[in-house]
């Protein structure tokens, strides 16, 4: 029977879900800031770029994007993962199974892309772009935290079917 190719050392699958829960909470705050801020009150196209950047919703989404980048580039040291391993995991039962670390990492990249699109559009003065990007990221993070569904991971096969990624990746 063909077994899946040997994977890198497994991680506790509850780690990424814990991180997704915190990300979802941060995104809720950011959506709230965005909806009550200048992104939707009609003034965004008229204010200078500096003011678009100093919008609290922009700054928070920037921080969230940097956290996505952190867990994409250096997953072992990403803050929510460290918090999970140091504080949460010792209080839980050992995991029933370990998980491949690559899909959650790929999903972090998708989250980063969505956040960056929102940030760039806000810089160009596009109204609603920032809260809508935060909402899209929130849906993905919440589904992961609450239901264990990883939309970013699902995307991988679709992209691969289209021949965009992975076909010649080393096993």
């Amino acid at each position, binding site marked *: 029977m063909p077994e899946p190719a040997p994977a890198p050392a497994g991680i506790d699958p509850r780690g*990424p879900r814990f991180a997704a829960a915190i990300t979802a909470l941060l995104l809720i705050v950011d959506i709230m800031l965005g*909806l009550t801020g200048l992104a939707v009150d009609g003034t965004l196209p008229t204010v200078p770029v500096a003011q678009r950047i100093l919008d609290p919703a922009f700054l928070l989404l920037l921080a969230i994007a940097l956290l996505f980048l952190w867990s994409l580039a250096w997953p072992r040291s990403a803050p929510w993962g460290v918090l999970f391993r140091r504080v949460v995991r010792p209080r839980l039962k050992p995991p029933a199974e370990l998980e*491949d670390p690559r899909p959650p990492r790929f999903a972090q990249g998708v989250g980063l892309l969505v956040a960056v699109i929102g940030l760039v559009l806000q810089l160009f003065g596009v109204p609603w772009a920032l809260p809508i990007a935060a909402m899209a990221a929130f*849906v993905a993070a919440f589904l992961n935290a609450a239901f264990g569904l990883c939309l970013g*991971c699902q995307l991988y*096969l679709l992209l691969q079917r289209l021949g965009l990624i*992975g076909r010649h990746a080393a*096993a």
Partner: protein
Amino acid sequence: MNPLDALLILAALLAVTIGVGLYLRWVQNRPRRHISHEVVDPLRLGADGLGENATLLQFSTQLCARCPHVHRTLRSVAEDHAGVRHLDIDLTHRPDIAKHFHVLQTPTTLVLDRNGVVQTRFGGVPNRSVVELELIRLAGETAHA
């Protein structure tokens, strides 16, 4: 926008997201039987044979968070049912197989009968009980035939 309107939008977003999550969970446990009932050739998939009574044919990829979980579930189902074999096919480097079976998500699981004919399809992470029910249904149908 005043904070109350923002909260209402937030509540609507949360409700829609929970709705999507519940729907996706329901879909994953819904066996699909109106599919093309083709005969699967195990050699084409790189396997040496099929199960005597039924085969649980799982499609996985390397970057698939839930595949190892489904692998464990299906393997244990196969161990508990005589003549049932579990095959796990890695599609990472076989886009041709993914295309042939129209696999748009992993894991996808096909339930084959004793003749290797595709009978049921599960997209996502099915519960163990749903898969077992499908095997019982399949065994019943072959007994009557």
